[in-house]
């Protein structure tokens, strides 16, 4: 199969940061017309490898080759000229610019030295059509939900008509339909002879889409082989170096339910006239296409955005909390999706992040006890297997560990209702399993967990009930018996109206 020279390759590259080796002697070769999967847990060195391939970082040892020739000094500019496009996991879009402007940024078509807007619109429009992005091109990107922004990011890469396309977890914030569009598109690009490097934590996607796989573990390459004859369990074994076991904990029927939150005709943001009961001891899933108002439902209940309701009871108190401190006092806790922007204080130490909800609710002028704080934080770190010095800033942690910190900070307050917004997005398999276990245990302890997720298998295997949201309304409430990926997706897309007695 390997007869032509790879379009882009790394040969025995190594890289360390501040003396910590991140990559050791890793090789990878991207062949035209092949979708190459790059797997590994968070912190395994995937992002570093991409940065080396795209010239954002320079290797300490080893070489980068383009078309079989060693590039002595790989730079982002050179990579662009060589037709290498990267879709970053951290979105690199400018919120106040329009879709078209973002797509063309840095490569605007010029006419008489000025930006040729009609030409830009035409070319950006073509790229948008490829990814199924139908919003007006003049929409500011900041107005788009996360999933659509991701599509803009992909369109931006396609605008440059790349020969090598590198996608870093492109589907982590996409809905099922958007994922389908993307996989079809990648399939087509592949048949046109483009080399694709695909990074994802969703193994079923990798199994269906990719032909070849490179697995990284702790900065070394543990597998470089075709995907033929492997299965998902085999891949997980390669990534974690041991048998995966079941990703999801066994589902067990929960205690007889009592409502902890019950709202009638609840409206917040995009959500309109929602009737919802959340029961103690259950894991309630919220599904649907991305950006249908699910997030507003959580934020409204949490008091973070204005919300209205005909009647509401939250933990015995009538009426909505109407403010985050009030919601916290009523035992609600919220873990946001965008942990860098909404969940963590990246420049502050891990310990300060963990203690923040405590600072928020203690009397303002009460003297702090650093010793007690350290003890609490150590306990949380041990409980959630967060390793290392707690005085490091939170940005030093990998994505999965950051998510654990975002969860951990609520644990000392023993919340009765945990509102989670896509807690496993961009999180490696091992951390996912830990988070699932935690949520199940939490529900088993008689608390309520509301899990908003863009990962449908998660909803099916983990939740007791799933509310499917479409266009600001709950269009279906699926009980355990009726739960399946098909049921959720069809309700989300309005394929059929299914209502199961809640």
């Amino acid at each position, binding site marked *: 199969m390997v007869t032509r020279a790879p379009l882009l390759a790394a040969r025995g590259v190594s890289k360390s940061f501040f003396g910590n080796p991140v990559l050791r002697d890793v090789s990878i070769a991207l062949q035209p017309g092949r979708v190459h999967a790059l797997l590994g847990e968070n912190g395994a060195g995937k992002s570093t490898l991409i940065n080396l391939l795209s010239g954002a970082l320079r290797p300490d040892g080893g070489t980068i080759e383009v078309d079989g020739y060693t590039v002595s000094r790989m730079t982002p500019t050179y990579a662009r000229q060589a037709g290498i496009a990267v879709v970053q996991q951290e979105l690199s879009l400018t919120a106040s610019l329009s879709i078209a402007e973002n797509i063309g940024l840095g490569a605007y078509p010029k006419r008489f030295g000025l930006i040729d807007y009609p030409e830009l619109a035409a070319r950006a429009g073509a790229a948008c059509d490829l990814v199924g992005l139908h919003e007006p091109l003049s929409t500011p990107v900041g107005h788009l939900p996360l999933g659509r922004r991701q599509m803009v990011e992909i369109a931006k890469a396609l605008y440059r008509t790349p020969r090598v396309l590198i996608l870093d977890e492109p589907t982590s914030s996409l809905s099922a339909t958007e994922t389908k569009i993307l996989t079809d598109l990648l399939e087509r690009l592949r048949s046109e002879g483009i080399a694709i490097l695909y990074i994802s934590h969703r193994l079923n996607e990798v199994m269906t889409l990719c032909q070849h796989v490179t697995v990284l573990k702790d900065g070394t390459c543990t597998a470089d082989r075709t995907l033929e004859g492997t299965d998902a369990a085999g891949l997980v074994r390669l990534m974690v170096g041991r048998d995966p076991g079941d990703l999801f904990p066994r589902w067990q029927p929960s205690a007889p339910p009592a409502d902890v939150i019950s709202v009638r005709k609840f409206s917040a943001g995009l959500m309109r006239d929602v009737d919802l009961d959340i029961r103690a001891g259950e894991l309630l899933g919220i599904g649907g296409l991305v950006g249908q108002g699910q997030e507003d439902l959580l934020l409204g209940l*949490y008091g*973070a955005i204005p919300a209205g309701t005909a009647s509401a009871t939250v933990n015995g108190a009538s009426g909505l909390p109407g403010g*985050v*401190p009030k*919601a*916290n006092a009523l035992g609600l806790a*919220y873990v*946001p999706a965008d942990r860098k*922007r*909404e*969940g*963590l*204080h*990246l*420049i*502050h130490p891990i310990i*300060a992040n963990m*203690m*923040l*909800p*405590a*600072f*928020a*609710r*203690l*009397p*303002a*002028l*009460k*003297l*702090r006890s650093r010793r007690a704080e350290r003890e609490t934080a150590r306990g949380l770190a041990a409980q959630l297997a967060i390793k290392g010095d707690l005085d490091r800033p939170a*940005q030093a942690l990998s994505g999965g560990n950051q998510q654990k910190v975002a969860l951990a*900070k609520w644990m000392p307050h023993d919340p009765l209702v945990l509102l989670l917004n896509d807690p496993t997005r961009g999180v490696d398999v091992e951390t996912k399993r830990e988070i699932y276990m935690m949520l199940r245990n939490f529900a088993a302890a008689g608390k309520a967990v509301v899990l908003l997720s863009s990962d449908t298998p998660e909803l099916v295997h983990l939740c007791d009930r799933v509310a499917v949201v479409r266009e600001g309304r709950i269009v279906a409430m699926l009980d355990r018996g009726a739960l399946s990926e098909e049921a959720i997706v069809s309700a989300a897309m309005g394929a059929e109206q299914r209502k199961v007695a809640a």
Partner: protein
Amino acid sequence: MTAWKDSAYGRRALTILRSRPFLTVAIVAAVWIAASFASRGFGAYGHLRYLVELGAVIGLVAAGQTFVVIAGGIDLSVAAIVTVSAVSLPLLSWQADPTGVTGILAVLVLTTAIGLVNGLGVALLRVHPMIMTLAMATFLQGLLIIIAGGSAVTAENPVVRWLGNARPAGIPAGVLLWVLVSVIVLTTMHATSFGARIFAMGANSLAAALSGVPVTSTTLAVYGISGFTSGLAGVLVLGMNGQGYVGIGDPYLLASIAAVVLGGTSILGGLGTYAGTIPGAILLVTITALITVVNASPGWRSVMFGSLILGLLLLSGREQARR
């Protein structure tokens, strides 16, 4: 066991040595030593004591400014508030209270209220702090001209006079006041939950709000504190000066922000300490004193002051890149 303790203390000592407040202290010490050799009389105890006394005014204004900047804002009305305090105190001194304490309290309530209005605009009306406080400053200056006009007003307040001139145990009362305020500020900033909330708000106010930090009331408090300390600085400046006039607070706007930044507090918010602002304030008065020694016209003095602040910031105060 002892070895572990030793190394922990060792690491701690190293952290302090590498910290920005310490760097600022080192710069002050270096400048003092160099200037003592270059200029006779600079290093005399009386002169250095005088410098610290001048630094107290900047230090008080910069105390509130440090809170505001750490919380992610900026207060451009501090100079106007200093003037409000120094001008209105003589007008507010009534005969019924010979000690003059009520007058001072009334002025401090007034300046704190001005700060709270700033906070209201920033927190509730969502006006950008720069615009809100700049508008407030302009408003106050206009009001002062209407009320006080161009004439200087003399204070007949015994407490104010004591504050500006007394030296219990050889230490100027203003410096004692500064020490007291510093202790309270440092405790509030680093040893209370309120302080922790301010840092969280400055680093990421959205994440802070979602973690339950009462952002509105904390913002109000921060600007209120800034109004209070500016008011206190106004009282002190009136005491040292004997007279209040419109424009008396003007030097303290740039000085307060420069002291904060020179002390290593990030102008972007979320990182910093008043422990750096203190040497920052002393460094600023030292520079001013050095420039005065050089015989130059006021225009050139201003040019030199501005350039030196920029130079010092290049030396020590550049922001580190944030992701």
